[in-house]
C-alpha cells in the first residue's frame, strides 16, 4: 500500500472533503440523488415537449411558404382615394365600399419574382392564384377555393406533392384538376372523370387527374388544384397572380425578410411567424412554466443539500475544531464544504443527464396509443434537448454552491475551543 497517496499532496480541503464524501456514502448519495432527479426532470420535460413543438413547427413551416406576398399595399388606399373624390361622404365609403374596392392581384408578377429572388436569403418563389369558384358535377355543385399553381415551383414551397394520390403533380396540364379526396367523394367523381369550374368570367371543363390526401379533414374537403394558366384564364387575369409564396434560408429570418420585401416593393407580406403567433406564444409560455418548475425543483434539491450539509457540519464539528487547532485557516474549512457540494452536484448532474437519457429512451420505446397522429403529425423520436441540458448543468451547480454557502460559512466560523469541548 502506497502511503504517500497522491491525494495527500492536494490542499487539505480537497483531501478531507473527498474522504468525508467517501465515508459518508449515504449522505453523499442522497445529495447526488436529489441533484440527479432535479437535473433529469429539468432536461426530460422540455426534451419531450420542445421536440414535439419543434417538429410541429418544422412540419407546418416546411409544408407551407415561409413568406406570403399577398397584394399591392397601395391598391386599397389608391382606390379609396379615388372613391373619396367620387363620394364625398367618407364614413360611408369606408364601411360599404372597402370590400368592393379590394383588388388582390399582383401585376407583372414575373418581374417581381425575379426582383425578390435577388434578395439575399430568399431561396424559392412560387406565384399562385387563389380564388373562390363553383364546382359542378352533373346536378351537384359546391363552392370552394381554387388554387392555380406552377407545379415545379410549388413543389419547392410546400409538401403538396407528398399528398398526391393516384396521379402526379408534375403531369398536371391546363385541362386537368387535382381534387381533395373528400371533395371528390362528395361529388362522386374519380380520377379520369370530368368536372366544371365556374367563375364570374367563364367556365371550363377539367379532367380529374389525381387526388390529394393531407390527412386534414377540412383541406381534403376543399382542395381544387389547377395550373396557374388555367386559373388565370378562368379569372380573366393574365399576367396577374393573387400571391407569391417564398422560402427563406433561415426560417427565423422570415419576419425580417417579409418586412424588407413589404418596404422595398410596397407589398403586403405575412411570415409564418405571424401566422403561427399563437403557437409560438404557447412555446414561450411553456418555457416560462418550465423555468418556474425548474426553480421549484432546484429549490427542493438545494434545500436538501443545505440541510444535509448542516447535519454534516454539526456531526463533524469536533473534527473541524481539531483541523482548526492544527492550523487550518477558516477559509480552507469553508472551501472543504463548498467542494463537497460542488463535487456531489457534479456527480448528480452526470447521473441526471444519464437519467434523462434513460427516460427519453424509455419514452421512445413506449408503444403509442390509438391516436396515430396529432394535427397530421405522427410520433417522432425524442432527443435530449441540448439547451436545457446546459441550463440544468449551470442551474444545478450554481444552486448547489449557494445551498452550501450557509453550512460552509457555519463550519468556517466554528470556534475551535467550543467545537472540541462539545
Amino acid at each position, binding site marked *: 500500500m502506497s502511503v504517500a497517496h497522491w491525494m495527500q499532496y492536494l490542499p487539505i480541503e480537497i483531501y478531507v472533503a473527498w*474522504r468525508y464524501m467517501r465515508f459518508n456514502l449515504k449522505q453523499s448519495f442522497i445529495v447526488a440523488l436529489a441533484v440527479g432527479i432535479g437535473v433529469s426532470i429539468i432536461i426530460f420535460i422540455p426534451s419531450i415537449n420542445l421536440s414535439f413543438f419543434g417538429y410541429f413547427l418544422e412540419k407546418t413551416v416546411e409544408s407551407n411558404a415561409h413568406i406570403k406576398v399577398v397584394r399591392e399595399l397601395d391598391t386599397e388606399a389608391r382606390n379609396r382615394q379615388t372613391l373619396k373624390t367620387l363620394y364625398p361622404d367618407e364614413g360611408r365609403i369606408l364601411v360599404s365600399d372597402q370590400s368592393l374596392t379590394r383588388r388582390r392581384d399582383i401585376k407583372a408578377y414575373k418581374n417581381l419574382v425575379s426582383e425578390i429572388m435577388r434578395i439575399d436569403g430568399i431561396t424559392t418563389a412560387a406565384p399562385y392564384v387563389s380564388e373562390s369558384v363553383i364546382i359542378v358535377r352533373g346536378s351537384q355543385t359546391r363552392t370552394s377555393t381554387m388554387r392555380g399553381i406552377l407545379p415545379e415551383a410549388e413543389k419547392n414551397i410546400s409538401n403538396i406533392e407528398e399528398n398526391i394520390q393516384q396521379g402526379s403533380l408534375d403531369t398536371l396540364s391546363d385541362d386537368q384538376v387535382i381534387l381533395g379526396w373528400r371533395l371528390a367523394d362528395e361529388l362522386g367523381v374519380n380520377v379520369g372523370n370530368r368536372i366544371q369550374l365556374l367563375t364570374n368570367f367563364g367556365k371550363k371543363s377539367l379532367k380529374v387527374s389525381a387526388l390529394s390526401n393531407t390527412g386534414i379533414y377540412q383541406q381534403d374537403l376543399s382542395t381544387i388544384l389547377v395550373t396557374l394558366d388555367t386559373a388565370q384564364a378562368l379569372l380573366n387575369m393574365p399576367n396577374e397572380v393573387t400571391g407569391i409564396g417564398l422560402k427563406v434560408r433561415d426560417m427565423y429570418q422570415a419576419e425580417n425578410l417579409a418586412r424588407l420585401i413589404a418596404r422595398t416593393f410596397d407589398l403586403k407580406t405575412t411570415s409564418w411567424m405571424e401566422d403561427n403567433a399563437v403557437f409560438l406564444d404557447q412555446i414561450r409560455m411553456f418555457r416560462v412554466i418550465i423555468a418556474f418548475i425548474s426553480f421549484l425543483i432546484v429549490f427542493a434539491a438545494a434545500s436538501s443539500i443545505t440541510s444535509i450539509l448542516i447535519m454534516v457540519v454539526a456531526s463533524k464539528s469536533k473534527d473541524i475544531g481539531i483541523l482548526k487547532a492544527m*492550523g487550518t485557516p*477558516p477559509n480552507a474549512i469553508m472551501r472543504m464544504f463548498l467542494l463537497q457540494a460542488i463535487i456531489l452536484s457534479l456527480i448528480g448532474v452526470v447521473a441526471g443527464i444519464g437519467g434523462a437519457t434513460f427516460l427519453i429512451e424509455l419514452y421512445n420505446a413506449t408503444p403509442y396509443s390509438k391516436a396515430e397522429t396529432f394535427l397530421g403529425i405522427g410520433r417522432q423520436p425524442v432527443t435530449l434537448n441540448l439547451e436545457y441540458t446546459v441550463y440544468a448543468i449551470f442551474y444545478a451547480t450554481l444552486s448547489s454552491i449557494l445551498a452550501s454557502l450557509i453550512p460552509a460559512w457555519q463550519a468556517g466560523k466554528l470556534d475551535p475551543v467550543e467545537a472540541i469541548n462539545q
Partner: protein
Amino acid sequence: MIQTDTILQTIALTKVYEGIQPVYAVRDLDLTIPQGSFMSIIGPSGSGKSTLMNMLGLLDRPSSGSLKYMGEPTETWEEKRRSQFRNEEIGFIFQAHLLLPEFTALENVLIPLQIGRNLSPARIEHAKSLLDRIGLGDRMHHRPPELSGGQNQRVAIARALVNTPSIVFADEPTGALDSTTSRSVYDLMREINREEKVTFVIVTHERELAGKTDRVITLLDGRLQSDEAPKESPS
C-alpha cells in the same frame, strides 16, 4: 524550532465573560515559560486552566493583557497568522478520541504537514519513525476506531510532534486512560521533552501526573495560586 530562552510570556492576561455579573475565567496572570520546560497547570474544575491553555495555544483571544511568543506580542495577529503559527510552532494533545475517524493513524499524523503544505517523502518517513517510536509501527494503517484509547492518544502525540513544534499543549492527556497506559503516555512526553527540547505544558486535574513535572502552576478562580517545583520532581 525557534531557539530562545523564553518561549512564552504573559503579562496581566485576562479573560472575562461579560454579562450582568462579569465572570473572570483568567485574571491578571503573569507567566513566563522558558524553552524546554516540562510543566503542568492544575486546579479544580472551573479554575480557568482550560481557558488559559486555549489562550496560550492561540485558540482563544484574551480580553486584555499581553501574550508574547519569543518576545513578539500576538494580540495584533490576524486569524491567518495565528493559524499558521499554530500549525508550525504549536502541538495540541487533547483528551482521547480527538483523531479524525475517517483517516488511518498515519494519515492523522500527516494532517498537520498537509495543512502547512509541508508534505514530502522525507517527512512521511519522519512520521512513520514517530509512530514506530511510540510503538504503533505495525498499526499505522488502522483507523482510530480500530485502536485502543491508549494507542489513539499516542497517535495524537505523534500528530502533535510531527511538525517539530516549539511547544506542545496537552489537555488532560491521560484523563481517559488506565494507569498503565497513562504511565506510558507520560513517559513518552517526558522522553520527547528531554531529547528534542520540546516545551510541554500539561493541563490536568491529576495531582499525580502534575507531581511528575518540573514545575506546577496552580490556578484558583482564574488567579495564579502557586508556582512551584514539586518535591518529588524526577529531574
